[in-house]
């Protein structure tokens, strides 16, 4: 917490000259290309209401192919709610979600997952009593075909499929750096390894987008650095886009190609890390309008 605040004050160090917040528009790299088809994921004017409460208000959002995008905002900004709409856990009150150019708004979470959207969880949700290998293999479910009878009679096709799935799972565990833990029950892994296993499990879905909900929570600075490298490796070697929700500003500013900032359900800024660093509205959202700036002046 203190670290992110320190970074936030750093943001305030170079005040933006413009007074009003700049107009915010979803950016689709590639100029005037259709945002629906040119992006892996495109959320078009999403609004989510819980009763009278507007959790997310008319937010548009794009993830281009092979990119690293971050979603940030103060507590209660609606980040996780928005995340849950993307994965299909919540239904959007208004708006449309496009995945690979297809409207997936009415499609259920498990089908969206199979279509190329995989996520991890803020508080780890592994299958604790299954081994690391089994955890990864569960996520291959949509890509495997064997049914009840072929499993009972263990047909050659089923056996080959299982063997290949097991090999893929081991390869993925190696990839995230826990290759030796394949036979361990997930609940017996250390915290850091559990986070890695969650990412391996998500990758087993062969997604186009990897959605990571606070992946560096509980990591030390060295691990965070390794994580940065890992995210770029995933993007470059596996052709995945990565969407991050993060609190740690140092991670966000280093890793992201573009950052989207939510505050109280509204999209208040979108741009490169430098844009966000200098954005007056973002600084105000994080530190308050005047009070904190005065406090800062007193301190310095």
């Amino acid at each position, binding site marked *: 917490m203190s670290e992110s605040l320190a970074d936030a004050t750093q943001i305030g160090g170079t005040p933006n000259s413009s007074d009003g917040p700049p107009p915010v528009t979803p950016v689709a790299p590639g100029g005037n290309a259709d945002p629906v088809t040119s992006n892996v994921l495109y959320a078009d004017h999403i609004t989510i209401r819980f009763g009278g409460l507007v959790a997310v208000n008319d937010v548009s959002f794009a993830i281009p192919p092979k990119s690293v995008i971050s979603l940030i905002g103060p507590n209660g900004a609606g980040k996780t709610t928005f995340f849950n709409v993307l994965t299909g856990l919540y239904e959007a009150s208004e708006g449309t979600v496009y995945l690979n150019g297809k409207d997936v708004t009415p499609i259920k979470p498990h089908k969206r997952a199979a279509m190329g959207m995989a996520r991890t969880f803020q508080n780890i949700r592994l299958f604790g*009593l*299954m081994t690391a290998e089994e955890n990864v293999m569960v996520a291959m*479910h949509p890509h495997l075909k064997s049914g009840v009878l072929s499993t009972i009679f263990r047909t050659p096709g089923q056996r080959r499929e299982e063997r290949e799935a097991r090999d893929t799972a081991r390869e993925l565990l190696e990839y995230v750096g826990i290759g030796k833990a394949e036979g361990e029950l997930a609940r*017996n892994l250390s915290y850091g390894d559990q986070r890695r296993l969650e990412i391996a499990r998500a990758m087993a879905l062969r997604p186009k987008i990897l959605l990571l909900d606070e992946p560096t929570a509980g990591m030390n600075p060295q691990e965070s650095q390794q994580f940065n490298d890992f995210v770029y490796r995933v993007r470059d070697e596996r052709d995945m886009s990565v969407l991050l929700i993060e609190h740690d500003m140092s991670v966000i500013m280093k890793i992201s190609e573009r950052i989207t900032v939510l505050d109280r359900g509204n999209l208040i800024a979108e741009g490169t890390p430098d844009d966000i660093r200098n954005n007056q509205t973002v600084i105000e959202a994080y530190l308050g309008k005047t009070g904190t700036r005065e406090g800062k002046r007193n301190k310095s």
Partner: protein
Amino acid sequence: MATSTAPRTSAPSPSRRSLSHYRWPIGYVVVIVGLFLLYHFILPNLVTQVSGPVTAWLPVATLNECLMWAIMALGLNVVVGYAGLLDLGYVAFWALGGYTAGWLMAAPFNWTWDFHLFGAVAKTYPGTHITFWLVILIAGVLCAILGLIIGAPTLRLRGDYLALVTLGFGEVITQFFRNSNDIAGRNLAGGDGGISIIDPIGTGPFGATGLVPPGLSNGAQDNVYKILVLGLLVGACLFISLRIREGRLGRAWLAIREDELAASMMGVPLVRTKLLAYAVGAFFGGIGGVANAAGITGAVSPSGFDFGKSVLVLLMVVLGGMGNVWGVTVGAFLLAWLNSNGLKQIGVQLDSWFGTTLTATLPRYNYIILGLLLVLMMLYRREGLIPEKRTKALMNTPSRTEMESMGAESLEAAAETAAVEKADAKTDAGIAASAAAVSPVLDESTPKREDRS
């Protein structure tokens, strides 16, 4: 218990797994054939002092009942143990299986056609008489379909709600059969009286080949052969249970049992996967129903399919060890035996020792005794008689993260607060006084150590 070296439980390696796959069928066949030989050849040739107690404590009829219940328990184990869905209405499938036998293996109504297909009775008998071996498949499929019909709306519910709805469906099916003598003016299943007499198992198409002697009637002299027949069915259920567990579907069930939401986010279709568990469980239930109607009772009536039976099967699964087929089989044998003959025999034994009159009363208190057994199990061995490996890990050891959060960190925190208290004690006499009041041990030990140094 919370030591730093956590006992790590890992799954058996694939090679060991495949070896055990070849080992259990041999052991199982040896046990079943051994039982058959014991009751068929050995016991009749022994003096009554030896054979008497054996047949008194475990008569052949009771052994057959145990085998039949094992089929049921294995079926419910797929639903409860594998997929983690609490089903309180499993008796519905047992009932439908039994009535399928009634429809296809008897002459229940004034049907105008006779149909024989390797039936166990002479061709002159009126009614439908299809061989047991075909009827178990038909009943299994019918029950699986009923499972899908019941499951489709209910499996969208979670936890307690699902349990309540299945409880309701179990009762609905029983009530349906109770009133089945007048469904829109038609007699479908004989109402309160049910259907009797249902054909015995028979040798069916095997008898026609002349390779096996005809027989397997419901007479007591053929009971001993039923050990082989029911043993074969239990073996098939064990085989299916073990195989289906290791694969795409078994993993998906486990994942749903562990964390439904995470499973759906990993692309596991929840309703579909749960429905399959329900259908497989129902298939076993149908087989158990036919085995009961044709092999054990020879008749079906609604009074036999009460809620108590659902509870009994659930008890077998829970006591035996949810998720472990061997535990569940042992649980089924134990409870079926207690319920059928064990309690009575214990009463007889107690009577002969202490002169009490428990022979008649003890079996009547069966549910009290079974309930007590369950309470004791939950207190002292929650994981069941032969627990599943994974569950054992859950019951006996805290997870790594649990230990890290409880053990390591709390130790650090304790050290920290102790250090702070010490520092405070040095700087501020007033606080030191209050700290002394709070933790006399700490304050006493500090000056002592200083004295020595």
